[in-house]
């Protein structure tokens, strides 16, 4: 069962991580520029602000997905033989899509946000020329197709090895009373992500194609509310799935460090099935302020957004606490980051759940509260998992060791990330809107706190990345190839 990862796939994983870490730094710098502008420390034009905002949003979600995919592939390879060509195709399509997005933004001034809410791109195309919107939308489409191909391949592999996605999600244990444990966590999570993210990508492809058609022939339109449903079915699920991919590393690595099994028992499987179902349902919490949506659908949005917190709070994060408890685990860069990432995930879920409450959403939707909560679970959750995985990779595939500077950098990153998300949440609490290039005087202080925090986060990210690249030099140098244990 314990297959070695294909050498070509290992190399591709390195490429994924290298691109992820470099783009991360650049996008973080973009984030700091936005905050400095809102905080009146520098001044850029609104056009530039919104271009940078579009790049930051698209880029961050993109690399979170890229890093998550690397993690998924790496660990799934232990249990299922995978053809590295698919990973490479995905990577190439990713880079192609990203290049087109960048051309759209920086050559053709596209600035309609990573959520490209119809009919905004069409409207901009009318006013500023179609090239920007066409490049952006087709770039996203190509990127999406790359992921869709990957998931279709993975679905085929899981079906071949486990007899279907249902079995991979442990249905025979949940429904048929089969005894014992389900497939490895990596397989369960992969099945969940295949189901939810394929749905997301199909919804995304539909609305992207419809938007493109509408730009080419304005006589063909799509209903804006329907388009918004598709857009958020895509955006919400896709962004969520980054963490469901990355968390595979937490299962694998913490259980390796603590030398304790993290098995898919019945409760675990039920939790992942609930996550699958709820993740598909709850994107409607993005439409709570669209009063035209049927009320029952919006109430579902609230109730199931609450419920969606339960699997992570009661099973995954709780499981992480249990496995670490009295384990005499070795605390180094990888284990610390994975442990903290579970904190980041749950901490981000708390303000998210509160905002999914309709009465709260009524006065907090599209305020800075929203970036406040998703920066918590993206920055301190997904990104922490990805960085943790980079260290883990270098440690077990090469011979990187924990140093004092790593402890320092992790502390730096988390302390200032708390500062950043605190400043966002506070700004949301005093009603500062999100996505405003200029801020009123009463909001400026929070922006400045955020900007200063952001600068230290960038510093931490640079050190992480430098350590990653220096550790890479020894990866794959042992002949014959041997993967080390992380626990020692």
């Amino acid at each position: 069962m314990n297959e070695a990862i294909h050498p070509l796939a290992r190399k591709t994983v390195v490429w994924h991580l290298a691109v992820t870490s470099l783009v991360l730094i650049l996008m973080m710098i973009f984030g700091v520029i936005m905050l400095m502008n809102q905080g009146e420390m520098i001044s850029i034009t609104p056009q530039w602000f919104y271009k940078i905002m579009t790049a930051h949003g698209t880029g961050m979600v993109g690399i979170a997905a890229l890093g998550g995919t690397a993690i998924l592939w790496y660990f799934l390879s232990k249990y299922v033989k995978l053809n590295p060509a698919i990973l490479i195709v995905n990577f190439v399509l990713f880079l192609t899509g990203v290049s087109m997005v960048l051309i759209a933004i920086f050559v053709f001034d596209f600035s309609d946000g990573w959520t490209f809410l119809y009919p905004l791109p069409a409207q901009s195309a009318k006013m500023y020329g179609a090239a920007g919107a066409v490049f952006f939308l087709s770039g996203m489409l190509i990127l999406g197709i790359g992921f869709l191909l990957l998931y279709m391949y993975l679905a085929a592999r899981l079906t071949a090895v486990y007899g279907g996605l249902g079995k991979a999600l442990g249905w025979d244990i949940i429904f048929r009373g089969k005894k014992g444990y389900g497939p490895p966590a990596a397989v369960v999570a992969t099945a969940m992500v295949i189901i939810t993210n394929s749905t997301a990508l199909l919804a995304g492809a539909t609305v992207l194609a419809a938007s493109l058609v509408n730009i080419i022939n304005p006589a063909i339109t799509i209903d804006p509310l329907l388009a918004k449903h598709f857009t958020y079915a895509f955006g919400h699920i896709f962004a969520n799935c980054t963490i469901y991919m990355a968390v595979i590393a937490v299962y694998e690595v913490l259980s390796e460090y603590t030398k304790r099994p993290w098995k898919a028992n019945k409760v675990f499987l039920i939790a992942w099935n609930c996550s699958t179902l709820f993740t598909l349902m709850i994107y409607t919490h993005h439409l709570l302020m669209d009063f035209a949506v049927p009320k029952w659908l919006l109430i579902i949005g609230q109730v199931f957004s609450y419920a969606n917190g339960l699997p992570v709070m009661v099973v995954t994060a709780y499981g992480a606490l249990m496995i670490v408890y009295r384990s005499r685990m070795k605390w180094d860069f990888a284990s610390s980051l994975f442990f903290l990432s579970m904190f980041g995930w749950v901490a981000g879920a708390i303000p998210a759940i509160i905002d999914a409450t309709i009465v709260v959403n009524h006065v907090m939707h599209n305020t800075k509260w929203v970036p406040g909560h998703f920066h918590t679970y993206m920055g301190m959750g997904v990104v922490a998992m990805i960085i943790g995985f980079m260290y883990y990779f270098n440690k077990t595939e090469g011979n990187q060791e924990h140093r004092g500077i790593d402890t320092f950098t992790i502390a730096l990153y988390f302390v200032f990330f708390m500062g950043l998300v605190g400043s966002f949440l506070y700004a949301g609490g005093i009603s500062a809107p999100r996505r405003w290039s200029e801020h009123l005087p009463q909001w400026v202080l929070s922006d400045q706190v955020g900007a200063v925090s952001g600068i230290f986060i960038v510093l931490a990210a640079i050190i992480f990345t430098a350590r990653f690249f220096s550790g890479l030099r020894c990866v794959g140098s042992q002949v014959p190839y041997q993967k080390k244990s992380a626990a020692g």
Partner: protein
Amino acid sequence: MYQQIAMYTTVFFVFLLALAFASVYGESKRSGEYSTIQEKGYKIRKFYFLGLIAIMAFATVMTLGRLPYDSNQAEAEGLNEGIVVKVTGIQYAWEMSEETFKAGDKVQFDVTASDVTHGFGLYNENMELVAQTQAMPGYTNTVYYTFKEPGTYQILCLEYCSAGHHVMVKEIVVEPEGGASDE
């Protein structure tokens, strides 16, 4: 009010969470038999799970009765004499059929847009967001608000609508009850 509740609740639960993680970190230095830890852990988890369900059920019951969507509640409070205002968002301005109100006015905003989606965000004099709805072309969303206090209110665009999004602001004046002052 909801903003304060949201902030305090978040701080409270994140603090509890941090406590849990910190204590497990502290305990990680000791060693224990995993099967006994699991046994105990699963027992505690039952209560933890039920506790979370209880909190969520409580929040659901407390909030689902006050949804901003329908006029039921507004009518119960006697909104039938309310003022109906038509609001249209357009890059980058708000067009309104009525712009001055009196304190005590119960207003029904019928909100739509004529180009792209905007967000109708009503801010009071202290720049607190007090009500909102989306302004989407082809749809009319109705949101109710009763102006209890006189003052200058503002409508801010709360859905990104391209480069002039942040200039899409409109002031509306709510005069004191019982006649306009002529300041």
